[in-house]
């Protein structure tokens, strides 16, 4: 027996599902899905739902590509009047198009959130009509979530750099994080592949976001005693994009070398206080432009860039160190070994490092020891002179560090430190491991 009521219910539901398929597919080339770094808030005194942890975010799932699913990451629409060659949604792409209504995005976000699928929303969009019109739509989703629904989960808005300063100012009042994509490592590549985008506008907008973020931080530092999180006080307390801003760069769509990429990242971190620069290995996309390389760069390249990026931010490395690590491979990071090991091999006079005596800055230079490992070494050596076995207890891989450290007991592996074959030793032990699996 047919039930007309349920049919009329089912059809829009299927339509919505189809739109979701298109607009999630279109969003997957954005690498970020982070829900970290915001202020701590919850719904204990609210009328809606949602909370943020303050520090670490939460990954609610992982897809088989190893990526974290933390936010509902979708485009408002993948219609776009721009023709950026590397983008699957560019005007000249034959991809299927769809557009969400503002209310549909809000309902999806709340429905997903209530089932604990997500930490919040990451909303981006193709440019329709004009930059301002599109940005207005994005802002109104965030605004309604906060003000109409008292939603206190995480919101990341992809910001359109060409939008008016007023809209950029508004966006940060509702979002936890804003991001503007730098897109490509060089200005020449940008004007070649994304003629509608202007590097100067991108930098100006990043500078504007930084200014608002700093102002709001200062304001909050003065009134740090209470942080009230309902929509009204959010404005009166002037909380602006509390998780800062981030950006994304596509790697392998132009011929920029890694040292050039990392020089730009370093600039972005220093100049605009970026929380993160995301690297996205240019991925084969359907309907790709003929102006692009036909092959994508190895995913390992992206991984090495992240490792080097970490060295710059957390290990006290500077650009000279990165250049030194990449020099034997002509400005590209070595794909066979990690950049910290590459740096160590190029600077052997610094080693061996004595784990019982060396200061923190030097311990951070030991290949195979992370920031946490360094902290553990410093803590453990207060109790006794550390031997190789103790490093093992600290869960530091002896295999990785033995060639570079002095311990309280004799270390026979040090004899290889000056050997030209040392790099090969590391590569061999890695392939051996692979062969075991």
């Amino acid at each position, binding site marked *: 027996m047919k039930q007309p009521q349920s049919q009329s219910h089912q059809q829009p539901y299927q339509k919505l599902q189809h739109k979701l398929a298109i607009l999630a597919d279109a969003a997957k080339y954005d690498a970020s899905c982070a829900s970290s770094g915001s202020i701590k808030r919850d719904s*204990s005194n609210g009328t809606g739902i949602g909370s943020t942890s303050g520090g670490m975010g939460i990954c609610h799932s992982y897809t088989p590509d190893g*990526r974290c699913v933390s936010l509902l990451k979708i485009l408002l629409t993948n219609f776009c*009047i721009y023709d950026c060659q590397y983008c699957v949604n560019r005007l000249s792409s034959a991809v299927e198009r769809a557009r969400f209504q503002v209310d549909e995005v809000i309902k999806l976000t709340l429905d997903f959130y209530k089932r*604990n699928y997500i930490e919040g929303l990451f909303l981006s969009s193709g440019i329709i009509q004009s930059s301002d019109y599109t940005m207005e739509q994005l802002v109104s989703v965030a605004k309604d979530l906060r003000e109409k629904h008292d939603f206190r989960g995480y919101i990341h808005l992809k910001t359109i750099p060409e939008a008016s300063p007023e809209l950029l100012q508004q966006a940060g009042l509702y979002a936890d994080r804003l991001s503007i994509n730098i897109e490509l490592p060089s200005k020449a590549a940008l004007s070649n592949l994304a003629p509608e985008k202007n590097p100067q506008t991108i930098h100006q907008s990043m500078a504007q976001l930084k200014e608002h973020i700093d102002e709001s931080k200062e304001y909050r530092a003065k009134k740090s005693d209470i942080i009230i999180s309902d929509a009204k006080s959010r404005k009166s307390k002037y909380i602006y994009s509390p998780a800062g801003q981030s950006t994304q760069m596509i790697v392998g769509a132009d011929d920029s070398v890694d040292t050039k990429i990392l020089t730009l990242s370093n600039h972005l971190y220093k100049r605009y206080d970026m929380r993160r620069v995301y690297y996205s290995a240019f991925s084969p*996309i359907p309907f790709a432009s003929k102006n692009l390389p036909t092959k994508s760069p190895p995913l390992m390249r992206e991984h090495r860039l992240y490792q080097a990026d970490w060295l710059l931010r957390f290990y006290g490395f500077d650009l000279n160190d990165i250049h030194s690590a990449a020099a034997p491979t002509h400005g590209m990071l070595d794909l066979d070994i990690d950049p910290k090991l590459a740096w160590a091999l190029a600077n052997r006079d610094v080693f061996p490092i004595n784990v019982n005596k060396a200061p923190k800055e030097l311990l951070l230079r030991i290949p195979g020891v992370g920031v946490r490992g360094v902290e553990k070494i410093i*803590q453990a050596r207060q109790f006794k002179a550390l031997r190789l076995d103790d490093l093992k207890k600290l869960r530091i891989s002896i295999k990785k560090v033995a060639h570079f450290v002095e311990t309280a007991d004799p270390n026979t592996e040090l004899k290889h430190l000056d050997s030209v074959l040392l790099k090969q030793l590391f590569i061999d032990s890695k392939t051996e491991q692979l062969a075991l699996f």
Partner: protein
Amino acid sequence: MHVITVNASEFAQWRNVSRELLKRDISPEYIVWQDPTLTQSSLDLFQDASNSHERNNNNFETDLSNIPVTTPKPSISAETLEAIELASCYRDDTRWALFYAIVWRVMHEDKQLLENITDNQIMRLNHMQKSVGRDIHKMHAFVRFQKISDSDHYVAWFEPEHLILKKTSSFFKNRFKNMTWSILTPDGGMHWDQQSLFYTESSSERPVINDELESLWLEYYRNIFNPARLKLKAMQSEMPKKYWKNLPEAPLIKSLSRESAARAEAMIEKNNQSISDKKLGKQMASIQKKFPTKTD
């Protein structure tokens, strides 16, 4: 001195018993710790009724009352107790003995013992804390509510590795304050009715609920996955298989992985299907028609 058998199944209980033991300076080697909640069923297999009756009488009060108090006010730092409290969620019936051995050493050997991270007992304590902390984090992440149709009740079934249900209450309560929800686990249920939190006895199996919104979540999961970058190992290290049975999206992993190579190839093949200049103009015109620029 003969061996004393004591019971503990919760941190508060362990703390009370330990205090009495420390007051009497009873060294760890004279104590047998039993956890009735974790060991009773296996013990009962071996012991007859009279023995188990004897065991119940064998609690510390009767045993300890004859032993004089030598250290009336034993003191342990708050940090030590906090560390033990967290570790006590670890599902392992040998933990109470370990904790007592540690507080004994903190009192008699080294006040800074917890800092000594290459000490075997401290390594074990740290491992337990870390494991419990991770399990709490994963529970925050992997609980999946299903809405019961025609009601506003959200229900989840979860199987935590450790005894962490109560440790997650504030997270769920503060996040979903204005929702009515229940989280059921083999160790017991936790419920929130928008006013108060309460616990119920253990549930044995997951309830069968059909929440049609789940199909949207599956659609999202399918499409946010990039088939050109299969990294199953990275995925599994963050989302171990033991959680899969209660994740609605997990059954998709196999097919998505299997089809990924073909899908990635199809993406490249479509490379040559960029549209012609003539069509490009049409595309632009159609967007402009759909989203006309406002004229003032």
